[in-house]
């Protein structure tokens, strides 16, 4: 009697917990989606809506941003009275407008991250499907190589690959794509192996479908979800690694608008009190990655 009473309260407690969890996940999903959408839109139109050219110097060097209380007044003056746009986030020590660069940077960062994420997802899913679907000596070898690649120190490997192949966006994309492929191989393969034991695979085979048809049209659609969820997280990691590489001087070359580069260039100025050069791009990265992580988490919850 007491046992059932105890479990009764347990269940209701857990239900409430699940409800709270779902609401939270829902709010998170909206938050994440909003950030992802904003960065995507900025990646497309960012360089066109900037008040100043993100790569050419202005007359103002190391100018601090206007006080936050003056912002509404300045905004009205710029929009309706034709006054020149203020340097909302100040200027850096080369005279570049920080606001314009923060807005223009998603074109660099997001493009790299999305391209690299897609490469690793497509490559990893394909290899994962292959190694999970037909298990023989060759695919076992592929898995061993994948394991070896996964035990590479990521940051250092990316640094070596990028700086030795030339610090261009294209090389960063290829490098990050390769570095994050093993994760997708592992995820997809694990899912495929589970799906292979299901009845529908045998049924599809019995109906006379060729192996590759079974693999691509029957197994793949049922085992791709974990990889799609992982994609959101991986894009976040790619943004982080892109910025980290340029921070240590092994990524995109200046004066391209890129968040990590801006943080690196503003860093030494911070000690002298000029905080605005790296604080604003840092906020941008921090918020962007949080958005992608939140979306990934919400998707994961919804899938489970």
């Amino acid at each position, binding site marked *: 009697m007491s046992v059932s009473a105890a479990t009764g309260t347990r269940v209701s*407690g857990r239900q409430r917990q699940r409800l709270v969890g779902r609401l939270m996940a829902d709010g998170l999903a909206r938050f994440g989606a909003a950030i992802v959408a904003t960065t995507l839109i900025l990646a497309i139109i960012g360089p066109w809506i900037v008040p100043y050219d993100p790569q050419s110097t202005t007359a103002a060097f190391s100018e601090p941003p206007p006080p936050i209380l003056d912002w509404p007044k300045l905004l009205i003056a710029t929009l309706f009275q034709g006054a020149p746009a203020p340097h909302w986030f100040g200027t850096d020590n080369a005279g570049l407008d920080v606001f314009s660069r923060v807005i223009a940077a998603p074109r660099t960062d997001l493009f790299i991250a999305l391209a690299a994420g897609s490469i690793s997802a497509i490559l990893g899913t394909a290899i994962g499907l292959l190694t999970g679907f037909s298990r023989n000596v060759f695919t076992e070898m592929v898995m061993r190589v994948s394991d070896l690649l996964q035990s590479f120190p990521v940051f*250092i490997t990316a640094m070596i690959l990028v*700086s030795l192949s030339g610090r261009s966006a294209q090389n960063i994309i290829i490098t990050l794509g390769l570095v994050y492929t093993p994760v997708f191989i592992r995820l997809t393969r694990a899912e495929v192996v589970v799906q292979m034991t299901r009845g529908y695979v045998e049924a599809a085979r019995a109906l006379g479908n060729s192996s590759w048809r079974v693999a691509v049209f029957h197994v793949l659609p049922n085992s791709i979800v974990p990889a799609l969820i992982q994609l959101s997280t991986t894009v976040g990691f790619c943004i982080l690694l892109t910025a980290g590489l340029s921070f240590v001087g*092994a990524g995109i070359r200046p004066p391209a608008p890129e968040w*990590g580069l801006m943080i690196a260039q503003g860093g030494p100025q911070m*000690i002298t009190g000029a905080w605005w050069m790296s604080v604003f791009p*840092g906020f941008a990265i921090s918020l962007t990655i949080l958005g992608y992580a939140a979306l990934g988490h919400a998707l994961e919850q919804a899938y489970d």
Partner: protein
Amino acid sequence: MLRFIGLRIIAAIAQAIGITILVFFLMRWLPADPVAQMVGTNASAEAMAQARTQLGLDVPVFRQLSDFLGFTSHLGAPGLLQGSLGRSWITSKPVLEEVLEFLPVTLELITYSMFVAFALAIPIGMISATNPNGVVARASFVWGLFAGSQPEFWWGLMFAFVFFFVLQQAGLPHAPPPLGRLSPMLDAPAHITGFIVLDALMQGQFKIAGDAAMHLMLPVGTLVFVISGPIVKMVRQNMGRVLASDYMLYAQLAGLTRWQVGRYALRGGLGPSLTLVGFIYGFLIGGAVPVEVIYSLNGLGEYSVRAVLQLDFPAIQGAVLVIAFVSLIAYLIVDCIHALVDPRITL
């Protein structure tokens, strides 16, 4: 058990050497030209050819590899078989010596960070698991999501700015210093473990130990900030799973106090979290690079950045080998601890 550890150590050595050989080929296959970097792009063809011969890059790649491994030695230098990683092309010092000088700095930084992060994460994770609707649980959930993937190099700068610049401007006398490992006036303690705080404490130099600890506060704080998120999440999930299991229900029904139940749950739930420790430790050895750069700690990460930017091939190979080996050993140690903590696992 001993046999298992021995086999795993041999496997780790083999894997680390495998990684290094892959990196070895990659570096020579990629278009960067270390010779041009060293003698300058305007150098004459003879100077280029001479430098190429001196660096041992004029022979076929497989010959270079067998030189590196120590099977042959056409420059008369020892190889890996003789226990040498070659000499740095920039400093001309033996790479092994350099790497072993820089490694303890990184190890000290990440070891302290792991300890602090765990000391924080275990109680927070336990409280969140036992009371999943509480304030702590919700805060730790948001924290795990937030701190799990943040630009640590930016947070490091922010910490340096807030604690050093802002607080010093505000008149705080003892702001943690943001650069280096020791104040310039102090001499480093004699080398015992390479962990500067431990070395100073072991020799009774409390002033130096205090100064070194102050210097480590900001870098350790930055790393703890970044890695505590996933650890808290992991501890909470594992504790939650253990608490929902039948044997925990039994322990509760048997009338044990909450603390006793918690202690049993901790034992069952900590094992999987330990796996994460190994993972993060291995990740940080090669991944704490930007934090080392910000605080000029002169660790292995900074060493490898320098080696990569200067195209110093032997130094890059040495750094990769040591980093890969240490992280593989970290996984091994965690597996052993896992087996000690969790009686269900035998090695």
